[in-house]
């Protein structure tokens, strides 16, 4: 009794693939269209994701800029308060409240400070 060997379809495909890989890679017209559509879809998704990330980052950046501006304004407020508090009139008033008084003539002392002589740098020559 003759025995007929029949390969299963998957095995057939594997054989064909190993025998001529180039023909396996060849795509028909419909394959090309499907491939192009898939690529365009993937690219679109990537673009969309990228755009979304850029927009989100942009808003985040904008928020940071707003916070930066807000902090600058706060800093200005503090500088203004410091400047107002450091008015000479205000300082005088506070000093007097603390009991400080201008020095009298008897309290002034003038000292002459003798500056040290300039050290002579030894020369190697």
């Amino acid at each position, binding site marked *: 009794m003759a025995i007929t060997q029949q390969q299963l379809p998957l095995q057939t495909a594997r054989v064909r693939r190993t025998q001529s890989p180039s023909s396996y890679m060849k795509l028909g017209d419909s394959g090309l269209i499907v491939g192009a559509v898939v690529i365009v879809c993937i690219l679109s998704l990537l673009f969309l994701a990228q*755009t979304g990330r*850029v927009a989100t980052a942009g*808003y985040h950046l*904008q928020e940071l800029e707003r916070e930066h501006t807000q902090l600058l304004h706060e800093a200005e*407020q503090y500088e203004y308060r410091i400047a107002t508090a450091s008015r*000479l009139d205000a300082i005088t008033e506070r000093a007097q409240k603390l009991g400080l008084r201008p020095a*009298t*003539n008897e309290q002034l002392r*003038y000292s002459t400070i003798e500056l040290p002589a300039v050290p002579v740098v030894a020369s190697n020559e």
Partner: protein
Amino acid sequence: MAQISAPRRAAVPRWRINIILLVVFVMGLLTTRQLVLIQVYQELKGRRLDELVQGELTKHVVLQPRRGTITDRNGVALAMNVNLNSLYVDSTKIEEPEKMAILLAPIINREASDLIPLLSDKTREWTRLSRWISPEAADQIRKLGEEGEPPTGLFLIEEAKRVYPQGEFASRIVGAANYEGTGIAGVEAFYNDEIKGITGTLQAEQDRDQRPIWIAPTQIVEPQDGVDVKLTIDSTVQKLAEDELRRVVEEQQAEGATILIMEPSSGEILGMATWPVFDPNNYTEYEPEQVNRNNALTDVYEPGSTFKVIVTAMGLQTGAFTPDTTVYDGGVVHRYGYDIGNWNRAGNGAQTPGQMLYNSSNVAALQFGEMVGRDNFYKYVKLFGYGQLTGIDLGGEGQGIVNWPEDNPDNWSDLTLGQNSFGQGIAVTPIQHLTAMSAIANGGTLMWPHVVKEKCLGTQCTPVKPRVVRRVVDQGVTDAIRGMLTTNAEHYANLIWGPSTGNWADQPLVAGYHVAAKTGTSQIPVNGGYDNNSVIGSVIGFAPSDNPRIAVLVKIDRPKKAQWGIEAAIPVYHRIVTKLMTHFRIPPDPNYLGPGQVIGGPQ
């Protein structure tokens, strides 16, 4: 059984159907036209769609630069920017206007009765109740609402404001910027182009909330901030000058006064105080003239006897006379049909230039002026900078009045030279006069007076370098004059020390310091003559005499209590120099003291 027949359809006249068809056809045509316009020609209501979209999407924003700050030479802030809240109301959302008015009134310093109509007016959706309220007031308004927000219908909007934290202090120099941020007086006006900066622009597509969409192309021209200006003013010196100014004006009930303090070696103005003062934070409350006018630069006055110093310098420089040359002072001298005399018509006998200054002899000064001669006299008047602008970096400067013989032959006569020799018939500005005196203090070199020491853009700073205008006289001449003026200052000392020490003789004006000074009592020209009831008292000088650190001018306009003005001006000069010697840490000479004098006194 009766058969019910179907209702008969009413016959519609054909003309009605035709009309309906026509209407539908016309509407179809119109729709088609609109479709073509929109889809093909991209137009809507006569405007191109892309333009409309662009207009809706694109945001054009002007980016405001930061106006530069102004500080004194030590970094004390004199003018700066601060974002303050302004209070706005949408009155359609205010439920209880009366109650809200009562709550707001004390916070924003307005009458409740004024606020009620504004809060009740339902036809106005946006009204400003108060501009630039203090941070404390803003906090109080937020506390009236919930969750740190103002009550419903009230809005706090941040708006930039130019502020002057020192108020009236140094306001004549700093000046003011108006509410639109444009300098209108002082340094603010003179350096406005540099301080204001350059606006930038932002052009970007925006989302529904008017936020730029970052994925769309954005065009930004960054604004360029204004230059930060550091003045030559020393706040301690300025404060001293202003305090003394206020004191003398009040004591003397004077109509005005000016105190100028300059560093002779550089021309830097250390202090400039004039009366009256103004607060640049509320500049609208003053007359425009009061804001714009800096009397130290604009006012002209006859320098009187203080001008004799200049005549002495020109005579010594030209060799017309020497320190030992004498002229005879008989009290009165007759020239060109007029009798010209000293203030008391008393003679002083033979007078050297030093004695002429000491006795403030008009008769001797006239003769020394004649010895200099017309050509040399006016040549040196010009070289010292009179009759022309000093070029100080502040606006509104006057150039004084000099009747030049060549330019004004009709107004000039030989008598003019004689009068000019003792400071009459010539008018100077305080800044001109002090600049000329500083040249004598500075060894004869005239410096450009200026108030800005440094300009900074970010961290890049450019110093304003002192500028030599010209050499006017030689060092030898100024050395001789310094000696004369120091002796002169001792002559005035009894006014200060006499009451406390009982010593009315000549003595150091400022105990422990050699100081130069010359006084002047100027008559005030009115209607072709002179005012017999008022004078201008002034002192001009420098200290220390041998190595001048400061040159000072004190001028008091129409003092009511001091008959000659100088009795008021000398104490001011004395106090200023005494305190500034300590401020600049200049050690006193313990051997230069009169009987009973103490350094720093009298107090």
